[in-house]
């Protein structure tokens, strides 16, 4: 079930307007992104014919099929935002446009991978909820996201660093000189009173601030060199 770009954009904004408590068609057409797609009442009527929405005067309501489609596009959009802010450390205010591009091109498989990579985040960088996907429901069963901040690990567990999210260049540089870069394998030695990790034969005490920024994936066995 694929829809063209304009329809996806309209569905997305029906959903987000509803989150804000509005279902006005006039309000919908007042949104810049919708206008940019040249969506008009004809688009809505086409969508009504396809069984996605019902129109009643100035109000528009999602039908079950439209609901599913809208949820999917919202999910892709917000996951893309999170990916851009966390992995590429972009500013939440500037990711909107890129995320809009992503949401129309992400395949379901890629969407699930991103969701898992990010540890099934519950909200987008702006604090709005991200609808759950199939992978998130599966995740509830084994309860362990693949990538998570290192402070989620238990004492004695080893992990491979996947990415480090920091706005401080100096901090990233210092960590790199100590060998703390993506790909390195580290072991959690203790978490209190300060966080201590082992990398190779080096034992390092690190600020909780820094620890929160190191995202890792569990590995079995002990750390390498």
């Amino acid at each position, binding site marked *: 079930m694929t829809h063209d770009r304009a329809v996806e954009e309209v569905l997305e904004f029906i959903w987000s307007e509803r989150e804000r408590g509005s279902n006005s068609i006039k309000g919908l057409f007042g949104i810049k992104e919708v206008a940019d797609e040249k969506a008009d009442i004809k688009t809505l009527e086409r969508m009504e014919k396809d069984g996605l929405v019902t129109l009643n005067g100035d109000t528009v309501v999602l039908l079950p099929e439209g609901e599913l489609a809208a949820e999917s596009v919202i999910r892709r959009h917000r996951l893309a935002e999170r990916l851009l802010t966390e992995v590429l450390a972009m500013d939440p205010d500037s990711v909107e446009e890129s995320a809009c591009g992503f949401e129309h091109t992400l395949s379901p498989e890629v969407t699930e991978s991103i969701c898992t990579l990010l540890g099934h985040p519950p909200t987008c960088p702006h604090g709005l909820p991200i609808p759950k996907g199939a992978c998130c429901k599966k995740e509830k069963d084994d309860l362990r996201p693949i990538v998570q901040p290192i402070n989620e690990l238990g004492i004695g567990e080893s992990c491979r660093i996947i990415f480090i999210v920091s706005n401080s260049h100096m901090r990233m540089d*210092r960590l790199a000189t100590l060998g703390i*870069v993506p790909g390195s394998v580290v072991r959690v030695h*203790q978490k209190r*009173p300060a966080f201590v990790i082992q990398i*190779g034969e080096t*034992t390092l005490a690190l*600020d909780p601030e820094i620890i929160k920024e190191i995202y890792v994936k569990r590995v079995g066995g002990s750390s390498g*060199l």
Partner: protein
Amino acid sequence: MHHGKRTPDRDKARRTIALVGNPNVGKSVVFGALTGRYATVSNYPGTTVEVSRGSLRAGGDTLGVIDTPGVNSLVPMSEDERVTRDILLNDDIFCAVQVMDAKNLRRSLLITLQLIEMGLPLTLALNMYDEAGERGIKIDAAWLSDAIGVECVPTIATQGWNLDKLKDSLIRPRISQYQIRYHAAIEDGIGEIIKLLPQARIFARSLAVMALCGDTTIRAWFSSRLDAAALKKTGEIILSVQSKFGEPLGYLINKWRLKAVDALLQKSVSKEGNSKGRAASFIGSVTMHPVWGWPILLAVLYLMYEFVGVLGAGVSVDILQNIVFGKYLNPWATRVVELIFPSGLIHDLIVGQYGIVTMALTYAIAIILPVVGFFFIFFSFLEDSGYLPRLAVMVDRIFKLMGLNGKAVLPMVLGLGCDTMATMTTRILETKKERMIVTLLLALGVPCSAQLGVILGMLGSLSLSATVVWATVVVAVMFIVGFLASKVVQGEASDFILEIPPIRMPQLSNIVLKTLVRVQWYLKEAVPLFILGTLTLFALDKTHALYYLEAVTAPLIKGFLGLPIEATQAFIVGFLRRDYGAAGLLALQQQGKLDHAQTVVSLVTITLFVPCVANLFMMIKERGLKSALWMTAFIFPFAVFVGGVVNFILRALNLTL
């Protein structure tokens, strides 16, 4: 091997060997072995904050040797790292000897690549080879040596193993041809910057890489050698390269280097089995355990009290003061002096109430020296065992409240040895704000060993509760001042990133040597000031100025602090050295002129004085005249104020200590 004096200076300047490497890999041990000079050796990162220079005779030549502070990168992040980088940048290096931790080659090689990039003649020492062996790490040194094109000598510096071989190879250093290529866009940027650079001692490529890494400390080098147009161009090149990547360039460049390092390691290092169940690693873990770490810390403090306070300040001082000086030296000196000068000014100057022998030397040698000696033995043991960085882990959270982090505990604990040395060690802290706060706290509240010993001796003769009151007041005052200072002093705190070395059994020879060096340093530092202090008192006494001074300060000393008027003398010499002031208080206590509460009040006050004149000079040197004077102007009145408050509370509550 002391050839230093015979070496003409220009020769020294021409051929220098620089010992470089990560922190705590044994550069100072190698330095000592090569030059026969002692540079302080401990088991924690940041022991060496100033360069030591010596010389080495090899193959009929005399070469200068420089021991540098440890670095994790040649793009400096702190003042001590910068010292090392500047030596490599500006000195004429005959050979850079990189001392490496053989069990941590990954991090060491990261620096090797940077040294190679600089184009320096290089020799590698794979030090702590035994520790690598114990952990099942096997290193193919010959392969590594071929791969990067410089000599790699496995060494165990503390045992002197293979150092002769190292010496042989460092006089024939090689310049490596090994080169890593970064991402094409970075390489383009390097190429463009090189075109703008003048001839330099080190390869232009490395300067270009440093600039791309965003090294702010290299800016001065660039701006003094490039014209405005070229500088602007450099900035534009850096920005345009950076704009092609989402991550900072310095980080990316390090990532490329690590990739190259990992490729080297894959072929040269193998690891078999796991080192497990070793007693040292158990001690290492338990001493920073969230629960067991605290009783261990208390046990360490208690041991220190027993060793320094009871054995040093109690038993040893008693023997020296009452028997050696009291029964033999002072009466003997008095007799000799009386033979020549039966009475009069010179007689009093040497053996009178404020005599150089009877007061200055008795205090310096009989009271302070044993305490300092005992403290340094104990402290050296702590330093060499590797306990101190673990202490930093324990107290990190507490220090955070003072705008500092756990790393600041290193200079603070060192301050218990000598505040002057410790003020210099604040260089290991990364931000100006942290250095400022720690300097203030050292000057205000951390008693140095000499003073601590006297204080513990005095309090030990009272009761445990007196000791607890004193310690609580001093710690609380430091904490409050630290907390307030963190709000007042501008700037930011730095990240807590601290390397924890393995627990090691201290070497007796190093402890003895280090203690001797420090005691000698103490004598050189303290005795002249003790004599100066005594002369001041002598002059004040003879001119009767002391009498007037006591009368003038009586409302303060007697009224506000509730102390006997004789305590004024102790506070006067306390301006020169607070341990000397404490020794004066000890004398008063021994004469029965201080009751328990008075002892505590006087000790709190003198503890909060600026440590000594030397410390003041060090503050001026490290923090600048203005800051040092502000701190001093705050500390002295504040010390008296706190003493007065304690006096008032103790009297009001009518506590028996």
